[in-house]
C-alpha cells in the first residue's frame, strides 16, 4: 500500500498497463459525422434556429403563393398586431414551461383582470390608473393561488391550473355578470385602458403601442433569463429540481415566484387585450390558453422543462400568426387554419424529441 503522505498514489497493479494505453482522459472524439448528424448537433446547440428557419420559410411560401397582399408592410405589421396577445401570454407561459410546469389558467387570468379593470374604471368610475393597478394586483393574486397550490400542496401544475382555469373563468363570468362593456364607453370614461391600442404609422406599416409593449416585455424577459441568477435558476429547476436543490437553490421559492410573475404578465396582457379589441368582454381571449402553449412549443421550448427561450416563443407566436394570416388571405376556410396549426404543434414536438436524442 502506498505511503499516505506521498503526493501521488501509486497505481494499482492492474492499472500499470494504462501507461501503455491512451494517455488522453475524457477528450472529445473527433468523429466523422453524417450531414444529418451535423444538422442535429447544430439544432441542438442553437435551439431557436428551427423556429427561425420555419418562420422565414413560411413567410417566403406565403409571399410566393399570395403575393404582395401578404408581403405588404401593412399586412406584415398587422400580423405583429395580431400576435400581440399571444406574444404577451406566451411570454408568461415560457417562464412556466422552462420550470417544467404548464399554466392552463393564463387566458382565464387575463380575461378576469380585463373585466376587473373595466368594471372598476368604467362601471364604478374609479380613476383608470387605480383600476389598472388593482387589475395587475388581481393577476398577481391569481399567480399566488397557483404558486401556493404547486409548491405547498405539491400538486402537479397541470392539475392545479386546470382547476384554477375553471375557477378564474367562473369568477370572471360572475363579476362581469356576463355583460360586455362597449368600446365607446371605455373610450369615453377610461381611455387609458385602450392606450395600448393606439396606432403608430411607420412607412406604411401600422403598429400599435401594444406591439412595442410586447417587444419590450420580450426584451426584459430575455435579460432576466440570460443575464440574472434568477433566470439561470429557472432553467436549473426545470432541468433537474433535485440537482438544483442540492446546489443550494430554493426551488419552491423560484417556482412560487414564477407563477406570480406569470400572473402579473397575464394582467398586463389584459391591458393589451383591451387595447386590441376595444371592448371588455368576459368571453374574449378564449383561445389564449392553448395559443400560448402552441407559441411556446412551436418556439422550441420543451414541455419537460429546462429548455426554451423567449425569442423562440416570439418566433413561435409569429409562425402561428403568419399561418393564420396567410391562409386567411388565400381564402382558406378557418377550419384548415386550425388543421395547419395542429400539424405545426405535432411537428415541432417531434422535432424537439429528435434533437434531444443528439449523441453527446
Amino acid at each position, binding site marked *: 500500500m502506498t505511503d*499516505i503522505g506521498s503526493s501521488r498514489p501509486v497505481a494499482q497493479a492492474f492499472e500499470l498497463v494504462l501507461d501503455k494505453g491512451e494517455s488522453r482522459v475524457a477528450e472529445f472524439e473527433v468523429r466523422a459525422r453524417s450531414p444529418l448528424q451535423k444538422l442535429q448537433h447544430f439544432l441542438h446547440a442553437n435551439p431557436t434556429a428551427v423556429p427561425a428557419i420555419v418562420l422565414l420559410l413560411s413567410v417566403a411560401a406565403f409571399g410566393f403563393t399570395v403575393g404582395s397582399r401578404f408581403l405588404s408592410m401593412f399586412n406584415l405589421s398587422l400580423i405583429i398586431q395580431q400576435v400581440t396577445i399571444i406574444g404577451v401570454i406566451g411570454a408568461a407561459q415560457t417562464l412556466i414551461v422552462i420550470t417544467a410546469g404548464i399554466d392552463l389558467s393564463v387566458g382565464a387570468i387575463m380575461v378576469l383582470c380585463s373585466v376587473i379593470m373595466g368594471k372598476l374604471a368604467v362601471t364604478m368610475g374609479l380613476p383608470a390608473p387605480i383600476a389598472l393597478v388593482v387589475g395587475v394586483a388581481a393577476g398577481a393574486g391569481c399567480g399566488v393561488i397557483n404558486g401556493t397550490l404547486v409548491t405547498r400542496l405539491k400538486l402537479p401544475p397541470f392539475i392545479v391550473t386546470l382547476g384554477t382555469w375553471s375557477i378564474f373563468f367562473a369568477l370572471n363570468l360572475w363579476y362581469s355578470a356576463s355583460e360586455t362593456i362597449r368600446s365607446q364607453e371605455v373610450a369615453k370614461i377610461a381611455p387609458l385602458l385602450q392606450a395600448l391600442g393606439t396606432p403608430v404609422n411607420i412607412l406604411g406599416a401600422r403598429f400599435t403601442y401594444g406591439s412595442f409593449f410586447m417587444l419590450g416585455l420580450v426584451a426584459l424577459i430575455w*435579460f432576466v433569463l440570460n*443575464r440574472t*441568477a434568477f433566470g*439561470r435558476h429557472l*432553467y436549473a429547476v426545470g432541468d433537474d429540481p433535485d440537482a438544483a436543490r442540492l446546489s443550494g437553490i430554493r426551488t419552491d421559492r423560484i417556482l412560487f415566484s414564477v407563477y406570480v410573475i406569470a400572473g402579473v404578465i397575464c394582467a398586463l396582457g389584459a391591458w393589451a387585450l383591451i387595447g386590441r379589441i376595444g371592448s371588455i368582454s368576459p368571453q374574449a381571449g378564449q383561445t389564449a390558453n392553448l395559443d400560448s402553449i402552441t407559441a411556446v412549443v412551436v418556439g422550441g421550448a420543451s414541455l419537460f422543462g429546462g429548455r426554451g427561450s423567449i425569442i423562440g416563443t416570439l418566433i413561435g407566436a409569429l409562425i402561428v400568426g403568419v399561418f393564420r394570416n396567410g391562409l386567411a388571405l388565400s381564402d382558406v376556410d378557418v377550419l384548415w387554419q386550425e388543421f395547419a396549426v395542429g400539424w405545426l404543434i405535432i411537428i415541432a414536438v417531434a422535432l424537439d424529441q429528435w434533437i434531444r436524442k443528439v449523441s453527446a
Partner: protein
Amino acid sequence: MSTGSNVPGTTPLLQARGLNKRYGRVTALDHADFDLYPGEILAVIGDNGAGKSSLIRALSGALVPDSGEIKLAGKTVAFRSPLDAQAAGIETVYQTLALSPSLSIADNMFLGRELRRAGPLGTICRMLDRKAMQRVAREKLTELGLMTVQSINQRVETLSGGQRQGVAVARAAAFGSRVVIMDEPTAALGVKESRRVLELILDVRRRGVSVVLISHNMPHVFEIADRIHIHRLGRRLTVIDPKAYTMSDAVAFMTGAKAPIEVAA
C-alpha cells in the same frame, strides 16, 4: 498514521454525535457518530442500506436529523439546507453530481452563488458578471488539469461522464474551504477517469481541505484513505487504520461476518 494531526486530543473538524433519523418505521440513522480530522481523507464504507447516504446528507445539510448534534470546529451547527453547509465551507459531490445538464459549465460551477456585476448594474439590475464567472471557472478547471473541454460555455449535457464528474469535483474543490464530501465519485467512471478523480482527491487534501470519501471500491479506499469509518445498521461500527487491516477484514466488519475486536482510531 502518517498524518499526525488526527491523534486523540486534536479537535475534530467535523463531528457528529448521536444522529437519529427515522422514515416511518425505517431507521436510517441510529445514534450515529462521526469524526473527521483536519487534513485527512476519511473513507466511509458500509453495505447497501447501512445509512451511509443518510449520514452524508445530514452532514451536507440535505437532510435534517430528528435528533443528535453536529459540530464544526468545535461549534455546534444546525444545517437546515445545503446552502447552510456550503456557507460553512462544506461542499458535497453527490452521486448524481447535482449538475444542470442544459446549463453551461460556468453556470453550473456558480449555480446558487452567482457573481453579480459591480455597481448599479449588479445591485439594481441584478446583472451577472459572466466574464468573471467564466474566468474563475476556467482557472479552477485548469488547476485541476481538467481543461480538456472545448469551451467553458459548453452545456454540461455535451460532456462525457468523466468530464461531468470533473466539473462537479472542481465546483466542490473551488468552494469547499474546509470539507469536501464525495459520494461514490468513481462508481460511474472508467479505469482512467477513476484514477484522475483519485488524484483530484489527493490534490484537494494537499490544500488542507479534509475529504470524506464514500465508496464501494475497496482498492481505492485502501489506497488513499487515512482512516476508514465502517458504517453498519445505521451507526458507526468502528474506525480502522487501512494499514493495520486487510480489505477482507473491512468487508467482514461491514457485512457483520466478523466483529471488530477493538474500536481503533
